[in-house]
Structure formats: structure tokens, C-alpha cells
């Protein structure tokens, strides 16, 4: 059996709405749940209702098996060996790079740099491209809904270079203030670093249009795609962006692996950021020379098994089809939103039209962390806090939110369990609906 292919039954793939599993969301969830071994475990002696997918997604057997198989049959160091195993491992790793290239529709595989994840990818651009290109008074434009990993690296590099960081303000719905992005793009703007999908609010930004505006203003664009790639098709050429970063572990893939897409002409001009083996051409004490991209930005032995596992995750996801996953999650989001609005005292944070399957909310009289603990006791896993987006919390004047985030294996039962647990918490705290 091809371990890389999802256990997809052709007939079930075409199953119309209303067959096995009943509702649309339940149909896909029922089909894929069996592929995810962790979903069978009990937590606190209850069925695991996992709604923390924005933090990390679970892994299908195909991905787990691919990593295991790598260590069992293909393990060797890459790029430098002369023996067969090393060649074989190198092939797998480079084919994984090409898989990422095809997944993002990048023009060349040299435009894919493997990193530990989104955070490292953004830091790479900040330290390499940023330090080489930013001068005092230059501007970097981010948005008010960024994750800390798309704020702090820029703050650090601004400190180093004298550049200035600006942030586009948000509306009460959690969208960018209309016209603000365009208005804030100025003659000194060198880079716009924007999130594709907000992890705290679920807002999906109009990246392609924003890229066009930024380019017209002479600015490059980096896109944080961590919350996007598992939930919608991403085509970096269509988006037109200069840099795109994502993490494997949010895409049903392993932790410790991710990728940076960067235009070849940009990479070719960027200085190294981490030095060591593999990123060099020659080394002597009189001076060293650098390898071409992408190797120039991949110092040391990478997470080889992770890269190969990431390719398996991409195969799995595309085997099911991102449009199908997106439709599933949107249907479930609608179901969840309707159910949430029926709970008295529940306030949704982040209500942008077209948002992704992320439900951030507050329940009156119950602090998010208390809510999280009570839900945990019911086997419902959500996240509570600032979600590495403190500026978002400040904007909305709240300490944090409770956040439920969807994936392909969630269904209506999970949402029902979430809502029941919230009502349970309300009874405990003596708030909410009067009996």
C-alpha cells in the first residue's frame, strides 16, 4: 500500500451531502477521522474534542509512517555523502522541496528554503534581507492583527537599522481599516509584512490586492501564511508576494519544519544569516564564500525526516483537496457561529466576513482561562489567552479570548460538546441563561 496516499475510497470521495455522516461537516470528518490515530485516545476519560488546531494540527498515519519509515530505511545525512543511502536521503529531501514548490506554485524549487517554521522564516528575512536593505528612516508596515512572530523580528531589525515600524489599525469587526493600508504605504516603506489569516480573529486579508498596492508604492511584501495553507489553496505567483512563510505542524505535518518561499532574485542578493556547513562554497581563515540559494540559507543538518514528512502531509491534504476541506470548515464555522450566538453573554471577537474556521470569543463573567480549565475537564481542548497577538487584545480592550479552531476532522458533535461545556461553565459561575 502506498503509505503516502490518504485512505481515500473513490466512491466516498464523491459522496453527496447527506450520506455517511449525515451533515456536510460530519461527512468529511467521518471519512478522515480514522486516518488520525490520536483522535481515538481518551483525555480525562472523555472523548477528545480537539478544537485547538490553530495551535497545532494532528497528524495522519501517512505522515507518522513516512517519518518512521525514513529513519528505518532511508536515514543518512544529505548533500555531502558519497554513498547510496546519502544519495537516497538527499533525493527524498530535495523531492520534498519540489513538493513544497508545487504546493505553493513557486516558479522554481530554489525559491523554497526549508526552515524550522514560520517564525524562523520571518526571522530569516528580517535578519538577512532586512539588515542588508533597511536604512534609518525606512519603514516597515505590518498590521494590528499580526502574530508576535511577524512583529518582534521587525522590531529587532528596526532597532539594528534605524528603520521604523508602523501598523495598520483594525475595525471593530477585526478587519483592516478601509483605506488605511494604502494610506500608510509611503515613499519610505520598504516592506509590508502581513498575515494571510489571523490566528486570533480568523480574518482573511485580501493579500493579492495588498501586494499590488505595496508593489505600486515600491515596497516588497512578506506574507505570514501559517494559518492559511491548511485551509485554502495558496498560489504565491498569483498572490505576487515576495516572501511567503508557513509551518508544517499547522498543515497536518511534523513540528520543527516549515518553509520560506522567496523570489529568486531576492534570495540571490541576500546575505547568509546562519553560518555553518552546507551554506558555503569554500571556507578558509582568510575568508569564506557562500553557496547559491536555497542552500545559502540552510546551514547545518536540517530536519530531514521533517521535510520528508511535510511532503507526505502535503500529499495527504491535496489528496483530499483543499477546496473540499475549505467547504467543510466553512460549513462547520457557520454551524458553530449560529450555536455560539444562541448562548447568552457570549461575544464573538473577530467577525469579518469570509473569515476562516477560527472562533474567538468571550463569555461574560468568566475569564478565558477559567473557561479553558472547565472545558478541559469536559475533554474539550481550546486555547485561552492572547494567542501571541497581544496587540489584538489591547485593541479590543480584553485580557484574552477563548479560541476554538477547526480542522478537517472536526464535526458538529465537537461543536455541540463545546457549547454544552460553555453552558456548564455558565451554570458553575452562576451566569448565562436562567434555568
Amino acid at each position, binding site marked *: 500500500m502506498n503509505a503516502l496516499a490518504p485512505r481515500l475510497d473513490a466512491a466516498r470521495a464523491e459522496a453527496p451531502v447527506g450520506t455517511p455522516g449525515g451533515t456536510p461537516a460530519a461527512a468529511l470528518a467521518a471519512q478522515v477521522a480514522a486516518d488520525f490515530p490520536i483522535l481515538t485516545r481518551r483525555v480525562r476519560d472523555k472523548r477528545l474534542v480537539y478544537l485547538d488546531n490553530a495551535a497545532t494540527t494532528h497528524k495522519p498515519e501517512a505522515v507518522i509512517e513516512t517519518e518512521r519509515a525514513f529513519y528505518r530505511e532511508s536515514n543518512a545525512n544529505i548533500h555531502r555523502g558519497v554513498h547510496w543511502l546519502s544519495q537516497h536521503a538527499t533525493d527524498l529531501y530535495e523531492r520534498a522541496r519540489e513538493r513544497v514548490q508545487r504546493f505553493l506554485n513557486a516558479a522554481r524549487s530554489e525559491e523554497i528554503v526549508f526552515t524550522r517554521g514560520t517564525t524562523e522564516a520571518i526571522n530569516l528575512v528580517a535578519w538577512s534581507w532586512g539588515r542588508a536593505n533597511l536604512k534609518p528612516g525606512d519603514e516597515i508596515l505590518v498590521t494590528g492583527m499580526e502574530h508576535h512572530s511577524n512583529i518582534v523580528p521587525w522590531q529587532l531589525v528596526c532597532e539594528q537599522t534605524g528603520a521604523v515600524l508602523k501598523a495598520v489599525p483594525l475595525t471593530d469587526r477585526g478587519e483592516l481599516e478601509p483605506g488605511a493600508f494604502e494610506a500608510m504605504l509611503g515613499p519610505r516603506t520598504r516592506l509590508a509584512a502581513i498575515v494571510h489569516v489571523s490566528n486570533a480573529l480568523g480574518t482573511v486579508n485580501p493579500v493579492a490586492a495588498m501586494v499590488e498596492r505595496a508593489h505600486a508604492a515600491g515596497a516588497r511584501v512578506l506574507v505570514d501564511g501559517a494559518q492559511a495553507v491548511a485551509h485554502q489553496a495558496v498560489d504565491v505567483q498569483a498572490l505576487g508576494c515576495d516572501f511567503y512563510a508557513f509551518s508544517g505542524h499547522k498543515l497536518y505535518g511534523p513540528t520543527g519544519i516549515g518553509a520560506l518561499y522567496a523570489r529568486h532574485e531576492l534570495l540571490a542578493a541576500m546575505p547568509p544569516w546562519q553560518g555553518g556547513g552546507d551554506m558555503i562554497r569554500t571556507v578558509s581563515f582568510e575568508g569564506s564564500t557562500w553557496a547559491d540559494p536555497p542552500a545559502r540559507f540552510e546551514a547545518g543538518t536540517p530536519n530531514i525526516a521533517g521535510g520528508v514528512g511535510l511532503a507526505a502531509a502535503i500529499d495527504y491534504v491535496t489528496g483530499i483537496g483543499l477546496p473540499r476541506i475549505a467547504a467543510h470548515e466553512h460549513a462547520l464555522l457557520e454551524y458553530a457561529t449560529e450555536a455560539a450566538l444562541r448562548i447568552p453573554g457570549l461575544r464573538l471577537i473577530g467577525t469579518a466576513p469570509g473569515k476562516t474556521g477560527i472562533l474567538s470569543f468571550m463569555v461574560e463573567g468568566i*475569564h478565558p482561562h477559567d473557561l479553558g*480549565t472547565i472545558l478541559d475537564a469536559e475533554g474539550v481542548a481550546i486555547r485561552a*489567552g492572547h494567542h501571541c497577538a497581544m496587540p489584538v487584545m489591547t485593541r479590543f480592550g480584553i485580557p*484574552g479570548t477563548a479560541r476554538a479552531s477547526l480542522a478537517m476532522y472536526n464535526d458538529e458533535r465537537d461543536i455541540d460538546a463545546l457549547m454544552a461545556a460553555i453552558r456548564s461553565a455558565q451554570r458553575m*459561575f452562576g451566569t448565562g441563561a436562567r434555568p
Partner: protein
Amino acid sequence: MSLSRGDLRELYQEVIFDHNRSPRNFHEMEHPDRVAEGHNPLCGDQLKLYVRLDKGVVADASFVGHGCAISTASASLMTEAVKGHTVEEVEALFRDFHALLTDAAPPGRDFGKLEVLAGVKEFPVRVKCATLAWHTLHNALIGAGDPAKTE
């Protein structure tokens, strides 16, 4: 480790709800001898603690801030528990209370109402919520400059 509804009820007892809804000594202080701030980055709990000392005895303690039920109730219970005690007694109580929440209750120590927070032991992630006020008080008493942090 299985967690039952019983464990949850143990943590979120009526006393906790009471002190969360109506925290005691929840106000700024006019002329404090010591002021300290505490912040729990995990949770967003923030508090500002005021202490008045009278010859080495905690004459008055109050606080303002916002946070989860555990941190608010703990701060409220703490301000009640420390009034009238010497600084040394308060520090000893802090040490014992921390042990109650993390390791084992020191034998023979009567915690009074503070006992209700013992249930937080089943929720290691929440221990910091329960100890924030105490860390802050400790900082206030030793006159530390920076805000107390639980990380």
C-alpha cells in the same frame, strides 16, 4: 491522570466564586508603604498591590487589577489572611502556601480559607494564577523594583 467533575468542583468552590465576584480589599490605598505590580503573561492576570506596615506588621493590604477567577480569589483571600501578621510570618505563609499548591502541604499548618486553593494542584497550568498575588506581595515586602512575574 484522570480529572473528575469532583476535581473541578474542588477547585471552583463557592468560596472562590464568592471572592471572585466580590473580592475583599479591592481598592487602591491612600498612603501605602509599599506598592508592587504583578503580571501573569500566560493568562493576562495583572494586579497592583498596596501594603501599609506598622512596626513590621502588615497593618493593611489591598489590591486592584483584573484576572481570572483563581488569581482574583487568591489575591482577595491573601489580603485577608496577611493582615495583622508580621513580615516574617507572611513570608513563611507564602512558602507554605506555595508548597500546598505544588508539592505537599506542610504538616500542622492551618491555612484557614486559603485551603480552598489546594485544588489548583490538579491543574498545574493554573498554579501561577494562584501564586501571582503572593509573588507580588513578596516583592512589595522586600521592596523590589520590577513588577513580579510568574515566569
